[in-house]
């Protein structure tokens, strides 16, 4: 015998469920720096990435349930590659991809019982900082166009607050990485993050062809040392 549940209550329950799932995970930070966009995740795993390359100028960062955002990432890679193959590499944009993700997440949220417990960032590096694009997508398919920095995941509010205090436009990679790591440390009271528990990647507009680059642990360590850690 089904009970009546009002649509408002149903949506609220789903949203609470999704938020709860996301808040259990660790955080990810995305911020603009002098040469492009920097992605930093509090993620000790070398195999299960939270940050990935989608296309020449586009990258993807996610928090929440791994199998769910991995599914979206793989779909995004196919979407990007097929469009780049049929048209031209320049015709693959973060805006287009964000739209597809928004539609997917929105449909899953309204039409299925279990919403995806994920939050995503789709970012595209432009020729200049003004043309960089950062889109943040939430579990219900909402899209926000962000500037400067984004924090998502477990303690997103605390991390975002820390970012707000530290973030400066046009920072060097070293400074930006320090800002990101310090902000991620705001997740807990006495957190100290080391190179081996960080996943770091950049979209560097000065590279050629494929602008995404994952930084190896040794390089992260060197950058953190330079930042005076």
């Amino acid at each position, binding site marked *: 015998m089904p009970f009546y549940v009002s649509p408002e209550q149903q949506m609220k329950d789903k949203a609470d469920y999704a938020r709860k799932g996301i808040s259990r995970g660790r955080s990810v930070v995305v911020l603009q720096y002098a040469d492009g966009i920097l992605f930093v995740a509090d993620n000790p795993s070398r195999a299960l990435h939270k940050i990935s390359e989608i296309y020449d100028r586009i990258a993807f960062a996610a928090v929440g349930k791994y199998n769910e955002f991995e599914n979206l990432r*793989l779909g995004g890679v196919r979407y990007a590659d097929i469009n780049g193959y049929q048209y031209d590499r320049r015709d693959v944009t973060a805006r287009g991809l964000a739209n597809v993700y928004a539609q997917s997440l929105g449909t899953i949220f309204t039409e299925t019982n279990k919403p995806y417990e994920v939050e995503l960032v789709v970012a595209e590096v432009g020729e200049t900082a003004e043309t960089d694009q950062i889109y943040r997508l939430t579990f219900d398919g909402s899209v926000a166009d962000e500037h400067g920095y984004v924090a998502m995941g477990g303690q997103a509010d605390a991390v975002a607050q820390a970012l707000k205090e530290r973030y400066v436009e046009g920072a060097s990679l070293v400074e930006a990485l320090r800002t990101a790591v310090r902000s991620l440390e705001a997740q807990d009271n006495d957190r100290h993050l080391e190179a081996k528990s960080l996943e770091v990647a950049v979209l560097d507009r000065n590279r050629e062809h494929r602008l995404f680059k994952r930084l190896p642990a040794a390089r992260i360590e060197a950058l953190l040392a330079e930042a005076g850690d």
Partner: protein
Amino acid sequence: MASHDAKAGRLPGLFVNPDTSSFTEFLGAYSPELLPGRRPLPAVSAGEEIPHGTTIVAVVFPGGVVMAGDRRATAGNVIAQRDIEKVFRADEFSAIAIAGTAGIGIEMMRLFQVELEHYEKREGRTLSIEGKANRLATMVRQNLGMAMQGLAVVPLFAGYDEDRDAGRIFSYDPAGGRYEERDFHSIGSGSVFARGALKKLFRPDLSAEDAALVCVQALYDAADDDSATGGPDLTRGIFPVVASVTAEGYRRLGEDEVGALARAVVEERYDSPGGPTAPLR
């Protein structure tokens, strides 16, 4: 984006179906007509009016490989294109070049590039060099029907093998046979003449720059005897495309670098039209 899913708007089921990391297989399910091997064969054999790409050479040197191609495409007796490019980056550590029907070859090359990148992005690792070479063999084999109708494409694949710290070259036949070549190889209409030159000019201790020079010399010799291969075009400033693949990755030599090599080769041929002579014993 065309939707193959009833639930409009969402990523169509095929996009999120995790069964394969091969772009070609995905494309075959999504839009089979986009695959070179899935089209109806022409009823009659294609004539000579479709442009053909010609000579490609590749030379291994310690720590890498150099690949080069002339710039001519021919349609019968007509020069269809003076500045076609036939040597491309396949991925960070490999290069692909095509000879034969230019249109199909370029399509195959593009598909191969996406195939390698797609696998790398999905799996988080690059294919082994043998894996890449085998993948290309499958693509060539799928074109066999077209090849029988006169639209053959034969690629040459070369890359840097990290495990061996060495360059490697793979050649193909139209049926998809894959053969690893030692030291050097050439394909295309001028390949016979180029191979003769390569044989005499190759040494196992070439530097990267000398390996590029060997390639330019060999292409000059191919153009000297094969009407479908273009020599260095000094008046228009059109020179071969030369690319090297080493531990540093794929690098296409700049116009100025190749221009200097080509001019030196042409200059030297004023005195000895047959090029450098090999010692008799």
